[in-house]
Structure formats: C-alpha cells, structure tokens
C-alpha cells in the first residue's frame, strides 16, 4: 500500500512536469506555425502603415534602450549602496521596498507615469514610456547587483583597502569587476523582461503607425501594437499580430538564453 501511494504520487509529479512542458511547447508551436506563416522579410523593411513592423521593432528597442540607460546606472548605484555603504536599518528597508516595487502591478506604474509625466506634458510620449519601463527595471537591477556583490569575498575588499585604495576605488576596480558576469546576466534578464512589457506603455508611449525618433510624441511600440492588431476584426491585422508576437518571443527568449549561457560558461 505504501509503495502504491508512493508510485501514484511520483507519477502525478512527473505528470505535472509534463503539463508544464506541454504548455510551453503548445505556446511555442502555435507561435511558430501562426507566426512563421505570416512572416516575411518585408516586415523588417516597411513600417506599420505599409503593413510592416520596422518602426515598431526599432521603437520598442529605443524605449527599452532608454529605459536601460536610466534604470541600469540608478539600479546599480542603489545596489552598491545597499551592499557596500549601507549599514543598519536604512539599507535593509530600501532592499525590502525594492522587492515590493519589483512585484508592483505594471499597469499601476503606467497609471503613475501617466499622472506625473503624460498629464503635465500634455500628451503621450516616448519619453514617458521609457520612464515607465525604467521604473520597472530599477528594482530588478538593484536585486541582481545586491545579490552578486554579496557573493564577492570580503578578503578581496580587505586586500584592496590594505593596499591603500579608497573605498570608491575598491568598489569600482575590485568588487564590480569580480561581480561583472553575474550583474551582466541580471541586467540582460531585466532587459528581456521590459522589452516584452505592454501594460506600462499602454497610456504612456501608446504606439504609432509611422517611423519616429521623436521622443516627445506618441512612440511606436511593438507590444502595444500587437494588442491593437490582435483586437481588430480583419484577418490580415491578426496575422500581422502573430508575426509580431513570433518576433517578440524569439527576441525575448534569445536574450534570456544568452543571459543564462553567460553564467553557465563562467561556472
């Protein structure tokens, strides 16, 4: 009897792992079939207004790129503070708040940026979208930096200080260098996360059918356009949405796997 219960339990557990994998396979296969079916290289050459995706892909990268340019330095600096300078309560409060911020609903962050950036500036803009994404990114970068710096052995820091280096020198030249690979992985994963975000962009950057580099206007976004296209009745719009989803997913998974591969190689 005990052995039977054991067998049933193990079988159920293997079965649930199978379910998890089946969902992943189902989604990926769907994307491949539907996405590749409507995929052609012309998508990269035309803008949405001509039935292509060029402006959207470039726009999404620009939004995520600016968000990274804001979020990575701020997140790293905050992570360095928590791990290297912070003593006592304040640093641990910031660490906890950053964890909470990481799980804050993304649509709420969109609403916040709408109220503090979009309304005062009089309209949706690429800049507002990038700020919303940066807010999503900061806590993830803080978390990685904090974790990776904590893995750097104390002796390295002490050796640096013993050589007469200032604390700032020790951090930038020794500690950061030692934790570089880990932080890079975390940053890549954070980038993969924000490049697929839709909700914070809905009413901050919105999207645009045209190619644009003007950050003060509504800015083309791949994810927001997928949402719009998927809700349109025409079959052709939906096909385009599938092609865009396929490109987005491949992009996100490649960035994600690259991040993991970097860490793997280091070990």
């Amino acid at each position: 009897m005990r052995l039977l219960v054991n067998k049933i339990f193990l079988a159920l557990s293997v079965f649930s792992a199978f379910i998890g994998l089946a969902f992943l396979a189902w989604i990926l296969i769907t994307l491949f079939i539907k996405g590749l079916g409507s995929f052609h290289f012309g998508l990269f050459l035309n803008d949405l207004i001509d039935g292509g995706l060029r402006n959207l892909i470039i726009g999404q990268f620009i939004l995520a790129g600016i968000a990274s340019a804001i979020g990575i330095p701020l997140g790293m600096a905050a992570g360095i503070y928590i791990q290297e300078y912070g003593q006592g309560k304040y640093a641990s409060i910031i660490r906890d708040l950053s964890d909470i911020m990481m799980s804050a609903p993304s649509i709420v962050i969109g609403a916040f940026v709408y109220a503090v950036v979009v309304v005062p500036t009089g309209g949706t803009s690429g800049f507002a979208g990038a700020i919303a994404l940066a807010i999503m990114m900061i806590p993830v970068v803080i978390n990685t930096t904090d974790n990776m710096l904590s893995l750097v052995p104390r002796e390295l820091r002490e050796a640096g200080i013993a050589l007469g280096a200032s604390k700032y020198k020790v951090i930038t030249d020794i500690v950061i260098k030692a934790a570089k690979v880990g932080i890079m992985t975390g940053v890549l994963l954070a980038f993969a996360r924000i490049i697929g975000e839709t909700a914070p962009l809905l009413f901050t950057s919105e999207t645009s059918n045209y190619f644009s580099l003007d950050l003060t206007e509504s800015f083309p976004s791949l994810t927001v356009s997928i949402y719009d296209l998927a809700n349109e009745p025409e079959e052709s719009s939906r096909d385009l949405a599938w092609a865009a989803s396929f490109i987005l997913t491949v992009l996100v998974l490649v960035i994600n796997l690259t991040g993991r591969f970097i860490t793997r190689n280091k070990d």
Partner: protein
Amino acid sequence: MEKIFQKLSLSSASLVFVILLGIFITLFIAAKPAIDEFGFNFIINPDWNKEVQVENSSIDSTSTSIQENDTLEDDEMIADEDDMMLEDEDDMMMEDEDDIATKTIYGGLVPIVGTLLTTIIALIFALPIAMGIAVFLAEIAPKNISNIVGIAIELLAAIPSIIFGMWGLYYFAPIIADLFGGYQVSLLTAGLVLGVMILPFMAAITRDSMNTTPSVLKESAYALGATKFEVIKDIIFPYSKVGIIGSIILALGRALGETMAVAFLIGSIFVLPQKITDPTISIPVAMANNFGEASGLGESALFYLALILFVISFAIISVAKFYFLKRAK
C-alpha cells in the same frame, strides 16, 4: 570623488523610496475626487459609468453629502434587477428625453470581484501542478534532466504576457469553452490562462525552498525505510512549508496585477458574473481599456481602482516577504 560616489549611490537607493511613496501619493491625489464622491461605498457598488437622476436639481457633486449618495445607490440596486442588458441604452434615452439633472456614478465592485475570482481560479489551477513540478525538479528528476526542465519552466515564465493572452484567446479558450460550455471569454478561461502564467513562477520558488531541506534529514528518513512520498510529505514539506506559502502568496500578488493576458480573455464588461463561465472585468483590464477615453470623474474612479489594487498587492507582497520568506531563511 569618494564623497560624490557615496552620495550618488545613497540618492539612487533613496529613489526607490521616493518612487514608491510617489506612486502612492499620486494615485491618492488623482483618486481624490472619486474618493470624496463615492467614499467606501465605491467598493460595494456594482454600477460603472451609469447616469442616475439627482433628486434635487443641484448637481454640485462636491457638495453632495454621503447620505444622499447612499440612497441613490439603493435606488440603483433595485432598478438594476429589472434590466441589466439594456442599461446603457436606457441611460442614453433618459438623457435625451428629459432635462432632469443627472450625474454619472462609478462603483468598483465588478472589477474588484473579477480580479479576486480570476486570481482564485488561477491559484486553484496552478497550485497542484506547480507543487508537482517543484517536487519533480527538486527530488525526482536526475540532475541533468532537472536542469533542462528547470530552464524550460523558466522560459515559460519569460514569455511576454501579451503572448499568453493571444494564445489563450485563439487556442486555449475554445477548448475550455467546449469542455465547460459558456463563453470563450470568461472568468474561467481568464483564470486558467493566468494560472498557466503564474505556474512557472510558483514552481521555481517552491523548488528553491524545497532545496533548502538539509540532506541529512532526508537521508535519515530514507535510512528508516521511508518511501519518497513519505520523505516529501513528512520531512521536506514541513521543513519548507513557510517558504512554500510565501511563494504562493507572491504568485497571488503577481496574478492580481496581471493585465495583458487577462485583457484578452475576461470579456471586459462591467457586469457581475452569475456563473464561472460568464464574462466580466478585472481592475487592471478596466484600467487598460478605459483609461484612454476616461476624463474627469471617470478617470478619477480608475485611479481609485488603481489605488485599491496597489494597496492590496503592497499588503500581500509585504506579508509574503516579511513574514513567510524571511522566516524561511
């Protein structure tokens, strides 16, 4: 240089505090008109964007007392039972026909209920599967298989939520609707797709908690002749219980705020669901779909919903982080 660097990192760290506080204050200010107008009755009022007659012709909304508000809402509930579907058209007619002073009222009950129900369905669906996966990864699979399956599960977590939404609407929902009847867009399909989304997240944290069980404990139990099931049930589970509960609550927090996957599947109508297969709406979806067109009191009511969502998820995540996951360490 030293000083500047230290100041810079300190101010970046403080930025986290400033942003969180800023979100709370901003949402509160933006929601203030709706809070003043509807008070806490907002939470139990099922009507959204509904024109109602004001008894005395003063429509000065700010001076409307809360008591008057109450009676209005009671009238509403009664009128509601008569006809739900034609509500909107009726309102339009009323507005055209007579010049009796009207005002628009907003209540948050439908999206709040929708958010909670989809989250509960997602949890019920994801919990057993996530536990099974975690057990498989932590205890059953050989190391190399566990690694590969682990990465696959984490990739599932990396897929953008909008992809889950599209896949769910066009491929998953029709199957569910065939099995359970009802609409393709419903509480049930939205909850299930949400469940698939939080599954890898829950499984990963649970696996990590289970891995903290000292192997000495496990080996002693095996030495006494326990089966794998007994070791998991009596040794690993009690040991990592607190961490597992923490992971469930974190997944719950994530499910509450999920927008895009649910937006495709919940149907987006402000009607209380009678059955699990009925369409309804959730707080994030209400925001996603109505923010663009809303203005004035309607926009303020959306901010009120956002504030409620933010406070709920803040509370849930704090409990998970500070009570359960801290103790797990």
